């Protein structure tokens, strides 16, 4: 840990073409490792945890302000909340699951806004870290999705019917089944939650790393030589990437909830 701190401290004074002999302080995995804010027993309380709590608080406070005393003629905040709620409800959940999806709207709405805000933290000054780039958070949410669709499958179809629903695709000639059934089993039960979590994690991880690389580079290249030009370009890329990340953050939250809805839709599908 002290090595990381030393490297962080040395970053500030290091510039392109400088004579103190240091190279580009390339950001790496250490960007995702935080020194604990405080420690309880063996558990470190770190910045991502704090950010996750702040995100949860933000989502709750926003929806509380918007929906706690709803009016027939909505105010501005309520209108914004309604637009967000309606977007998730109609364009994601009901679109994917259909009429039966009404029951899962609250879960999906909570999930969407929680993930989105955690992603947005990437570009909020002082936070500047996408909480979802710590894989523990997407893993937790993906496991909630996995438990939901697995239990729905078995509740609706029973154990045998549920396994058939998960592993036995319809309309396939019998001789393909002995290849397809293991693939389906593997894909639907094991790979699904893994990809769901890793997709969100990797996008946020890569996006954050890109922004960090270019912003560190902007600082590093800032020197009285030709570096100033490079530095400016690098800064421009950072700004562009930030805008791009804003899109990716939304998209990843959308994809996560969309896939979760489609898994639930698959679980609720009538036996074929």
């Amino acid at each position, binding site marked *: *840990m002290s*090595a*990381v701190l*030393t*490297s962080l401290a*040395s970053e500030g004074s290091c510039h392109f073409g400088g004579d103190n002999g*240091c190279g580009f302080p390339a950001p*790496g*995995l*250490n960007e*995702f*490792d935080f020194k604990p804010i405080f420690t309880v027993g063996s*558990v*470190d*309380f*770190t910045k*991502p*945890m704090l950010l*996750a*709590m702040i*995100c*949860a608080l933000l*989502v*709750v406070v926003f*929806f*509380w302000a*918007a*929906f*706690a005393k*709803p*009016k*027939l003629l909505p105010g501005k905040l*309520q209108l914004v*909340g*309604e637009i967000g*709620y309606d977007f998730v409800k109609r364009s994601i959940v009901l679109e994917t699951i259909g009429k039966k999806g009404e029951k899962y*709207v*609250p*879960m999906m*709405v*909570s*999930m969407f*806004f*929680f993930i989105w805000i955690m992603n947005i933290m990437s570009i909020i000054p002082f936070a500047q870290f996408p*909480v979802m780039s*710590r*894989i*523990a*958070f997407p*893993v*937790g*949410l993906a496991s*909630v999705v996995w438990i939901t669709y697995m239990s729905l499958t078995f509740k609706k179809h029973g154990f045998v019917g549920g396994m058939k629903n998960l592993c036995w695709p319809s309309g396939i000639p019998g001789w393909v089944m002995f290849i397809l059934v293991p693939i389906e089993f593997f894909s639907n039960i094991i790979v699904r939650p893994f990809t769901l979590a*890793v997709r969100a*994690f990797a996008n946020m*991880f890569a996006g954050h790393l890109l922004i960090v690389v270019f912003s560190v580079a902007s600082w590093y290249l800032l020197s009285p030589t030709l570096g100033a030009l490079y530095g400016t370009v690098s800064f421009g890329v950072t700004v562009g990437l930030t805008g791009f990340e804003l899109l990716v953050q939304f998209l990843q939250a959308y994809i996560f909830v969309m896939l979760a809805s489609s898994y639930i839709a698959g679980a609720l599908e009538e036996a074929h």
Partner: protein
Amino acid sequence: MNPVVAFAAEEKMNPLLPAWPEVIIGLLCFFIVFGLLGKKLLPSIEKVLADRRDAIEGGMERAEIAQREAQALLEQYRAELAEARHEAARITEQAREQGAALVAEMREEGQRQRESIVAAGHAQIEADKKQATAALRHDVGSLASQLASRIVGESLEDSARQSGVIDRFLEDLEAKAAASTAAAK
């Protein structure tokens, strides 16, 4: 700066291995959000959205119902008006028929009364005539007898009457008069 130490520090952290405290904090945060939104906030907004939809659709529905009612009422009024007209026509027709029947009846009655009056008049006249004829004949007979007795100087009255001379004479006279009137015709 010791790159080996830094590398070792980095290697300890595998970004694909979830840290359990973070998983727990993440889930806790999610379930707090889910709990508050799912139990309180979303149902309340859903209710308001339903109310709003209801208010809009209900208003339209009420207007439609009112229009349908008005239409039905109009139809009913029209039907009633037509029926009333029909009834009026029927009553007029009936009255006309009754009037005509009454007039015919009255006319018939009048005719009958007239006829009976005329008949009674005729009978009366006939009776008066007979009476007058009888009285006249008697008077003429007595006058003639008186005259004759004056001339003859004695009373012939009884014998003349007995013999029916006068009567015969008068009948002859009548027959002659009737013949002359027939010839004149």
